[in-house]
């Protein structure tokens, strides 16, 4: 009876321990899956690509993770009997525990069965629980440690610069824009008069230029910033316009009434033109100081607006061309436009809509167009009307000849763009190699007949027979044998002939 009780208590304890062990496994697996799920979530959050920012998602994750862990464990859950068999096999207990358990459920037990049960009790007492229970920690759980480490590293790393700096074409394309912006800002700083009515914008431009230079900004961010500045400038424009209008109205109220300024143009630009025209008509060269100041601010802002619009346009073209092979136009255009703008900013009184004298003719490239940019480097004289080909009329020659420095309007093809040329890749050796191995040709037609060959053998035979010491009685026998072969072959050959 004592054995029975002892067995029952030990086996119950083992059952409980196994249950706890199983629970621990589920939890550990849950943690493992949780850490695995956290990695992509954190990465996406860091890249601002995940819809849910903040810690909320980490509070939501355990639910599905526990479900996943249960889904993995529940179908594999063994019965207690199976667990005992597994323990028996694992610890080489010679099926003692499982057999004892099976016979324990029988109502009557024999002497040997009782002894077996006693043995099982002793085994359960002797073996340490850690030994009996299956290991919770499996090799795959090393992934948990790795995942935790990775999470810790990810938590302290800002991934955005890594990602954007690795975006090759965008990085390369942003450079000229950044250069252009910084040139513009430098010019503005030199020119102290040209203070805009939107003072925050130059600072923002400077920040943007430095961000592009440090490669911490992506085209999307730059585009957003430019758009934001543009809207600020536009708002400022309209404010100045309102102020100017009210100033003018006040002055008109004091002085005799003239024709009222009506905005006939389209939007702010139209209204501004009308207003400036009206002031010039009214005051001529003697524009009052307050009005003059507002007009200068208005003009500065308009230039800034034009610059920002152009930058936005360039950014648009970058996004259109990024990733395409042979993206020559964007880079080249960016640099050329940048130079053009720089030139414009050096001549502030020149109207914006007036084109530079010769596009690309007098620009000095800071770098030759080689290397990263896919296009061919441009000769400083390239694009001018040629003189290089003697005997030809200079004006009719295009290309590399020495130009006459004659200024030409840029020519744009009136037709629509053609099909985009897709570069099939680098020309060179193919991936596979084909070789033709030619078989040997038939050297010649065999003309020797079989009969001729046999005859030669026959002659040799005769000679051998004469030389060799062959018994006389056998000489004829051997001779006949070979002659017979020859005859048979000849007959066969004759038969086969038609």
């Amino acid at each position, binding site marked *: 009876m004592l054995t029975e009780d002892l067995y029952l208590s030990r086996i119950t304890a083992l059952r409980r321990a196994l249950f706890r062990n199983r629970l621990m496994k589920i939890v550990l697996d849950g943690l493992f899956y949780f850490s695995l799920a956290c990695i992509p979530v954190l990465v996406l959050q860091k890249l601002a690509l995940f819809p849910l920012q903040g810690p909320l998602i980490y509070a939501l994750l355990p639910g599905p993770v526990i479900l996943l862990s249960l889904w993995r464990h529940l179908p594999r859950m063994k019965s207690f009997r199976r667990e005992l*068999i597994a323990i028996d*096999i694992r610890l080489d207990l*010679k*099926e003692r525990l*499982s*057999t004892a358990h099976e016979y324990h459920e029988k109502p009557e037990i024999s002497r040997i*069965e009782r002894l*077996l049960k006693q043995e099982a009790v002793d085994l359960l007492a002797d073996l340490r629980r850690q030994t009996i229970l299956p290991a919770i920690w499996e090799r795959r759980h090393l992934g948990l440690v790795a995942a935790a480490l990775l999470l810790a590293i990810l938590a302290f790393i800002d991934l955005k610069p890594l990602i954007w700096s690795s975006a090759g074409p965008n990085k390369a394309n942003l450079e000229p824009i950044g250069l252009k912006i910084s040139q513009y800002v430098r010019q503005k700083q030199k020119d102290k008069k040209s203070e805009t009515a939107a003072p925050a914008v130059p600072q923002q431009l400077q920040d943007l230029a430095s961000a592009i230079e440090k490669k911490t900004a992506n085209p999307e961010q730059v585009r957003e910033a430019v758009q934001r500045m543009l809207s600020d400038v536009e708002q400022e424009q309209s404010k100045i316009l309102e102020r100017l209008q009210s100033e003018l109205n006040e002055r008109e109220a004091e002085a005799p009434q003239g024709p009222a300024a009506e905005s006939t143009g389209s939007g702010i630009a139209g209204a501004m033109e009308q207003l400036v025209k009206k002031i010039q008509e009214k005051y001529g060269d003697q524009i009052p100081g307050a009005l003059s100041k507002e007009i200068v601010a208005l003009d500065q802002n308009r230039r800034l607006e034009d610059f920002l619009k152009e930058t936005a346009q360039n950014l648009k073209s970058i996004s259109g061309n990024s990733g395409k092979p042979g993206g020559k136009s964007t880079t080249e255009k960016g640099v050329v436009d940048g130079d053009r703008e720089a030139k414009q900013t050096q001549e502030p009184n020149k109207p914006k809509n007036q084109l530079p004298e010769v596009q690309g003719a007098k620009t000095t490239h800071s770098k030759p167009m080689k290397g990263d940019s896919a296009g061919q480097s441009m000769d400083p004289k390239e694009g001018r009307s040629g003189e290089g080909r003697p005997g030809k009329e200079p004006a009719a020659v295009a290309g590399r000849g020495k130009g006459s420095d004659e200024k030409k309007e840029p020519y744009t093809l009136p037709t629509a763009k053609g099909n985009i040329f897709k570069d099939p890749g680098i020309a060179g050796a193919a991936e596979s190699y084909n070789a033709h191995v030619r078989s040997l040709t038939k050297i010649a037609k065999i003309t020797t007949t079989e009969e001729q060959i046999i005859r030669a053998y026959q002659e040799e035979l005769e000679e051998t027979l004469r030389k060799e010491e062959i018994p006389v009685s056998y000489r004829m026998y051997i001779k006949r044998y070979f002659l017979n072969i020859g005859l048979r072959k000849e007959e066969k050959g004759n038969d086969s002939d038609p």
Partner: protein
Amino acid sequence: MTATHEKPEMVKEHFESISRELAKVIVGQKTLIKDLFICLLCGGHALIEGVPGLGKTLTVKTLSRILDLKYSRIQFTPDLMPADILGTNIVNQDDKGNRYFEFYRGPIFGQVILADEINRASPKTQSAMLEAMQEERVTVFGAEYLLEPPFIVLATQNPLEMEGTYPLPEAQIDRFFFKLKVEYPTPQELGEILEKTTEHYQPELQTVLHAEQILEMKKMVKQVPIASHVKEYAIRIILATHPANEWAADKTKQFVRYGASPRAVQALVMAGKVLALLKGRYNVAFEDIREAAKPTLRHRIIMNLKGEAEGIDVDDIVEEILVKVTGELGK
């Protein structure tokens, strides 16, 4: 001397004492002795195969002497008749002059029967032993005679000499619990044999076990617990010997014509029980079944023509089956 309450440990002790006594005469052959002891406790019969001179007959003779059992030796020859084994009715006359038939018991009415060179007798004579081996009784002229327990037939056969022999029919082969192979002695054992047989060595054998004790142990063996998954393991091994079965090993499919009979699974489990007791355990383990597999199955697996032609050893097939079935244990 009657032991009414044998302890399980006594099986091991008895075996050790038998081994000690046999070792006085027999050199080596430990596996053979152990397997013979298993047959004795399981009520099975053994077919002992080995080349001449390895001590088959001597082992059986010595065993019968130390077990205190009635020993009969039948030398099988081609002209041996069933009546020579079973016995026959002879006409007798009483004091009053009345004549009557009296049954004259043959050598089968012993307890340890040595059927020497069993494959030399005709199938008719060989089959005379079928009833005795299976049911421990003989029927002669309609009269049944029970054989005295414990009854064990230990048949020997020579695997080399095939001329003038009659291979045992499958039905009879299946009745043998084990087929035992007598291995050639090692150089050390040969030296010991020389010492014991060519010098003045006169061993004095003692009876170490009696029929009652054997019967008591036989009862005990049947009580040894075996878990259902161990039984299932034994069943799978037997099923794996059948070429058409899903458990069949590759070699089984290739070289086996017929697999083992249900008697084989009985033998596997019974032998496993004795092996467990011999190892001092109270339950049958997988390893006991594995250990019993080769002597149980090697004569029950019938090879096909390809297997015979290629000289495939049945033990190799059993080995592959064990590997396959054991490999699937953890699944």
